[in-house]
């Protein structure tokens, strides 16, 4: 299924009037490489940068590295825990484990991962678009009351994976 169909373009409000106006606005950064977005792969241990949610089962602790994946940690000796490996999953936010299978999100999909062998991590199953919030294609607001302007995403250009603040003319979307 093409990820771009999950775009919520309806969230854009077109600004009234048609005067071209130069202003600071958010411009989408696109990717068309949906293959890499959907890849679930093993990686070497890495430092924790964007601390995420935690889960534990037996002697293992799992910690989300926000947006990138899951740290797998051996805490059999809680005085000297060790990272064992890393599981990459784009836009990772959540983690839960049952019967040796890891449940997490990959972009807006729910995925089931077999990571019993951290050198051979593999996707077991996937349910599409369980987290529609994660596929929203508009930039963040600094707070509830500040209006932000942005260039309306064009699904033909790919999926928006980030935003750049630029001075542009005629930012047509706002929220």
């Amino acid at each position, binding site marked *: 299924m093409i990820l771009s169909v999950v775009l919520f373009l309806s969230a854009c409000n077109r600004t009234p009037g048609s005067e071209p106006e130069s202003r600071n606005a958010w411009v989408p950064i696109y990717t068309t490489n949906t293959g890499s977005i959907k890849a679930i792969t093993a990686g070497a241990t890495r430092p924790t940068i964007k601390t995420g949610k935690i*889960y534990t*089962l037996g002697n293992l602790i799992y910690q989300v590295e*926000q947006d990138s994946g899951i740290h797998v940690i051996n805490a059999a000796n809680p005085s000297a*825990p060790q990272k064992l490996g890393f599981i990459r999953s784009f836009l990772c936010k959540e983690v839960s484990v049952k019967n040796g299978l890891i449940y997490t999100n990959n972009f807006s999909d729910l995925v089931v991962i077999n990571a019993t062998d951290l050198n051979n991590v593999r996707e077991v199953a996937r349910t599409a678009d369980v987290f529609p919030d994660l596929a929203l294609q508009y930039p*963040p607001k600094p707070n509830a009351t500040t209006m932000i302007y942005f260039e309306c995403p064009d699904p033909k250009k790919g999926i928006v*994976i980030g935003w750049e603040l630029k001075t542009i003319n005629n930012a047509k979307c706002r929220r």
Partner: protein
Amino acid sequence: MKKSMIILISFLLLFTRCNKESATGGPSSTGAGGSTARFTIIGNFLYVVDNTSLKAFDISNTGAAPVLKSTTNVGINIETIFPYQDKLFIGSSFAMHIFSLTDPQRPVKLAQADYIVRMSCDPVVAKDSTAYATLNSSGPCGGGGSQLVVYDIKDITKPLLKQTLPLNGPHGLGISDSALYVCDGTFGLNVYNIRNTYAPQLLRTIQGETFYDVIPYGNILICQVATGIVLYDISTRHQPVFLSRILN
């Protein structure tokens, strides 16, 4: 470098606005998560909350794709899900929602307790006849005073507000026996005595980390902090002892 600034798409996610999680029990084939999770596994079901709804997935067929069994509208700004016994406690910006799992495929709403402080980020945990929630009114979560609220849930359909205690910048929380651990962000980890369940008594605040969530797991307290994870020994529940940090 260009002066332009790049922000990952994830910043727009509601998920990142506030994180909270807490624990559900000891070792088994299913583990324990925190109070800020949007996922929880109970038996053969995975429950997921998105911004507005609660979804039940059948995961009994190990290795197959989770099968959606029901979608239940909960409200708006749904943030967290916490399992306790055969109930789900769902935290939102506006209320604590309680669902029955008598039929695990179809959670049924039992109660809703509206908060007085609105626009806050609110994980919930429960034990026996008491539910605890933190209401975070700082930063993107809204204005007003942050709180720890305590509900009597003896009658699960009619939660009664029993106590409100001030907090600074709360996130997740967790319970182990007579101890309640509340992450107060940059202000530290508050340890409460909850022997008198409706009147938590603040015993100490552990400082030096920015605490986001906790999982009490046997004699270990697993804390999500800004730099990674910190473990404490809670053999003495009211007196966590530092064990280690997991950063690199």
